[in-house]
């Protein structure tokens, strides 16, 4: 299982989730007003500095850049082809700073803190009689099980490759869909066994005293 959370007790872990999310939101608003490469470089240094304060394991999380650099490289190439290379540079730097900052929040925030922080956004649902807890739980489940689904896919690809030599095929899609549905069935059962998405607080307590089971 891949888990994005980095265990620790740094100042970033202690900063409230809402504050961190707000900081990234404000930073993204501000960065869209800026186009000076000097300021971007300073921001980039600041963000990387934040990773450094998490210690070696924090810096290791910068490995994210490996995948990211391909994407950003392609974007820059598109700008170059369309003759807007120098307009492209701040765009790329802005993206880079924001992605690194958002990732920093992800790796230093526990999921239930994150849920607590985003719950107010779902509050309006309660005005029309829907539960705010359900969508928040959905977010948690997606974050938790998306990597597991990728794991299922890679296992299937290995099995497929072992027997056919080919790495990928559209033929893997239907069984993947079935496996994912089966997985969600199991997860739903496990959730139901612990009181479901609504919890048990509303239900009457069970009667006490001896009982045959």
């Amino acid at each position, binding site marked *: 299982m891949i888990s994005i959370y980095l265990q620790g007790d740094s100042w970033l872990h202690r900063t409230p989730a809402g504050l961190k999310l707000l900081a990234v939101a404000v930073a993204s608003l501000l960065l869209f007003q800026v186009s000076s490469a000097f300021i971007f470089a300073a921001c980039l240094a600041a963000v990387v500095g934040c990773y450094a304060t998490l210690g070696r394991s924090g810096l290791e999380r910068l490995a994210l850049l490996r995948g990211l650099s391909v994407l950003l490289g392609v974007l820059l190439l598109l700008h170059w082809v369309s003759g807007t290379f120098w307009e492209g540079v701040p765009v790329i730097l802005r993206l880079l700073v924001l992605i690194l900052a958002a990732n920093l929040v992800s790796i230093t925030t526990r999921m*239930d803190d994150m849920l607590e922080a985003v719950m107010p956004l779902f509050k309006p649902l309660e005005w029309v009689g829907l539960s705010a807890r359900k969508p928040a739980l959905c977010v948690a489940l997606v974050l938790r099980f998306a990597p597991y689904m990728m794991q299922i896919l890679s296992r299937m690809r290995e099995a497929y490759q072992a027997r056919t030599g080919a790495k990928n095929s559209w033929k893997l899609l239907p069984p993947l869909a079935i496996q994912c549905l089966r997985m969600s069935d199991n997860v739903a059962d496990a959730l139901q066994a612990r009181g479901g998405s609504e919890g048990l607080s509303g239900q009457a307590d*069970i009667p006490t005293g001896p009982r045959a089971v």
Partner: protein
Amino acid sequence: MPRLVGVVFQNPDLQAIFPTVEEEIAFGLTQLGRDRRESRDEALEFLAIHGCAQLASMPIAELSEGQKQLVCILSVLVMEPRLLVLDEPLTSLDLLATRKIREKVLSLPQKIVMVSHDFSHFEGFDRILWLEEGRLRMDGPPYEVLRAFEADIDRRSGVKLELAAL
């Protein structure tokens, strides 16, 4: 039901909903209506009582299979069910983890129902129900049921059998 019966499923990866151990345990408590702070404090206390304080902030993904299974059992136990149902909890564990989890399960005050295909898991249980093709084939003390079961295996191999013990 969940207040009365706690169910631990076969695959811990599909049971744990939250990324860290403490959150997973605390979830059961918020399910019972505790607020978040209470849940977290109680979860830490509960982990300490069960000798797992050091696991609290660990990501579940980084635990060993045995630790994962233990966390799943604790996450159900924290809701204080009367009866604990374990669906093949030892199947994917190594010998050491099997023994540890078995000891843990047998030391609990709850009534335990455990499903298994392996009769070495049933040592220490009071009663075994032998289920075959969805039907109860035998119900009795472990010694008798296991002997009959073994004799049956000797007679005809390759039939799918399931045992449940109380």
